[in-house]
């Protein structure tokens, strides 16, 4: 994009080079030197120094650009200097910003109607602010959830999914109970405890304590599911432990069991991947609006 074409002096050339943003290139196009200026006949008796001073005064007397500020003119791609006639010691510079120079859309006077119409293509500041607040709020929620998941584990809580209705109506099938390990001697009648099935040590049972008896360093428990008609009797060493049910989260177990199934694991991997892919495709292909975003995409 050519943003200006004008002759500049050596000093201005240095200034321009300093101002060129990183990543942009400037092409210098030497132009043939104009015919030598018509020598101004010095006034009778005037010295050569006097002639130089007159030329400087002439340059300084040139009109200064009026209108928008320098920054605004730069934004709109306008030159911020008024062309001056070429001098013999000057080269014409054609700063061609070949790459990375965003197309800045209409100049400031042209933007007026757009701004009045709500600046189409540019998100309002309030929207961006709300988006930022939402983004950081979600981040906070995610951090909080991570903490809520991690802290109970550090405190010795263990989640267990209930697979039967033996504790209905207090605990339902599909609930997740959170149990904390306590000493067998701390258990009380009426507590809901988790213990190993006396008939099959691989199975964990969650039932209510109906009777406790301590004898010979052994704690004898009698437990029963609220919905069962029979009791079970089992023992634990007095220095042993049982799981005390602290919390009961309704129906969460169905989601956990599904999540640990093959289909659930597949969905937990595929769904986020699809969402991320769709988001990226949208980001790439979404119609660009506004000169700034269009330039960024090219």
């Amino acid at each position: 994009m050519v943003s200006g074409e004008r002759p500049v002096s050596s000093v201005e050339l240095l200034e321009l080079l300093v101002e060129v943003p990183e990543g942009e290139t400037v092409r210098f196009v030497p132009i043939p030197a104009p015919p030598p200026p018509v020598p101004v006949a010095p006034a009778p008796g005037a010295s050569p120094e006097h002639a130089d001073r007159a030329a400087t005064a002439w340059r300084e007397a040139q009109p200064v650009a009026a209108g928008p500020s320098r920054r605004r003119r730069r934004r709109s791609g306008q030159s911020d200097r008024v062309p001056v006639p070429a001098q013999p010691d000057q080269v014409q510079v054609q700063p061609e910003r070949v790459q990375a120079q965003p197309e800045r859309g209409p100049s400031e006077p042209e933007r007026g109607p757009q701004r009045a119409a709500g600046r189409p293509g540019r998100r309002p500041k309030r929207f961006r602010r709300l988006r930022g607040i939402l983004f950081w709020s979600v981040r906070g929620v995610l951090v909080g959830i991570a903490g809520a998941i991690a802290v109970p584990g550090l405190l010795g809580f263990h989640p267990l999914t209930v697979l039967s209705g033996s504790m209905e109506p207090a605990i339902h099938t599909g609930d997740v109970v959170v149990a904390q390990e306590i000493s067998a001697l701390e258990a009380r009648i009426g507590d809901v405890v988790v213990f190993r099935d006396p008939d099959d040590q691989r199975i964990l049972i969650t039932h209510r304590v109906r009777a406790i008896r301590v004898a010979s360093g052994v704690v004898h428990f009698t437990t029963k599911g609220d919905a069962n008609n029979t009791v079970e009797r089992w023992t634990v060493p007095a220095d042993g432990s049982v799981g005390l049910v602290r919390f009961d989260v309704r129906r969460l177990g169905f989601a956990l069991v599904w999540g640990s199934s093959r289909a659930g694991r597949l969905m937990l991997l595929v769904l986020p991947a699809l969402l991320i892919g769709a988001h990226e495709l949208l980001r790439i292909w979404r119609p660009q609006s506004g000169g700034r975003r269009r330039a960024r995409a090219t």
Partner: protein
Amino acid sequence: MKSTTGAERNAAAFAFGILLVVGMVVWAVNAWAVPRGDGKVGADVTFITDPTGELAIPGGAFVRGTDLRPGSPRAEGSIPVRNQTGGALDVTVRALPSIPDLDPLLMVEISAGDRAVYRGSLAGLVVGSKSLRLAAGHARTLDVRAWLPASAGDGYQHRIDDVTLEFDVQPAGF
């Protein structure tokens, strides 16, 4: 009024998110907490049906009372009873408890719609209820409620009573 910077705003939003989760956790701890035992256990009562050939009755338990204590909420359930014979029947209900300990303590009420079939102690139901007439092919739903009245004395703790309801049928008018 002092304006906030973007960084302050983001930090506040981040803190808000964390506080939101903390608030939900506090709520969940209260809502999902399982109360600890108080060293006592009330009575567990289950009512089970005993089907007969004349009546169509779903089998199994239909009333479960867990940790029943004096003055605690009632255990209740209902069961449909259908006369599957060709003639009208007079039906009476009898209780067959698995233990006698709760017989004088536990109160039982059986009703068929607006009509009370029985109201009294479990001991009385062991003898039998009033009769309920069922026309041929007709069905009624029996509502059963059981509770320990506030005046009930000790002797209910740790008791597990499975009460079987037996339906005695006679031809109507016999």
